[in-house]
């Protein structure tokens, strides 16, 4: 999935970012219908780039080589709230339309921060949560509009949306 085109809108609180998203019911009934086909592009609600300062609570590496990041608010704030953000696997280097440079920058920053302690196929949690500043494009994960919702069992009841920031184009950790 390539990135959206508009300028990045920055949020200081993940709660405000989540509140700005179109409701799930609207997205499920979207016209044109959102499909899971790899050639299906972004719909207008997904044509947004966002940035937020928050905390990294958990991460795992998916079978498709993406890293799933579970990003949440400061743990002293209520309500507790988390959202999935994805560090994408890299597209072919030669294809300029697939934003290799931005995706590679975000992935390299993530890998450099953790060094040999990158997450594997099950979730690593971080104690204390790690401060993170991200930028990336919004993506409505229609694949999980039915059935099991994404996220680790311990947190997913406080993950109110299946929207993701995907792909991440910038990450600052620590």
């Amino acid at each position, binding site marked *: 999935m390539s990135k959206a085109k508009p300028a990045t809108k920055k949020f200081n609180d993940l709660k405000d970012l989540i509140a700005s998203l179109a409701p799930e019911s609207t997205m499920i009934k979207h016209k044109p219908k959102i499909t899971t086909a790899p050639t299906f592009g972004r719909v207008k609600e997904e044509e947004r780039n966002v940035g937020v300062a928050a*905390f990294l*609570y*958990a991460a*795992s590496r*998916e*079978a498709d080589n993406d890293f*799933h990041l579970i990003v*949440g608010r400061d*743990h002293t704030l209520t309500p*507790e709230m*988390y959202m999935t953000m994805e560090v994408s696997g890299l597209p072919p280097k030669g294809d300029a339309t697939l934003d290799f440079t931005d995706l590679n920058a975000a992935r390299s920053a993530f890998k*450099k*921060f*953790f060094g040999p*302690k990158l997450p*594997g*196929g*099950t*979730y*690593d*949690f*971080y*104690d*204390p*949560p*790690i401060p993170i500043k991200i930028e990336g494009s919004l993506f409505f994960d229609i694949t*999980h509009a039915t*059935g*099991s*919702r*994404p*996220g*680790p*069992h*311990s*947190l997913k009841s406080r993950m109110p949306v299946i929207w993701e920031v995907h792909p991440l184009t910038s990450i600052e*950790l*620590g």
Partner: protein
Amino acid sequence: MPKLKKKKARKSATRSAADTLDQLRPGMPAKDSIRKVVDFVSPQNARYKILKTTEMDAYDPVPKPKKKRS
């Protein structure tokens, strides 16, 4: 048997490391999902604990266990 003793020691070390964590802090994993606690020092020299858990997305395939030397 020596092998059995080693396994028990490792398990109890994980358990005691998990026992020192603040389980009441929002965002912590279920205690019984923690299989290992690893120290991590960030490039900025901040200290964290990485809690390696058995938690995964419900729709993901269970990762194959790494082969161990016999």
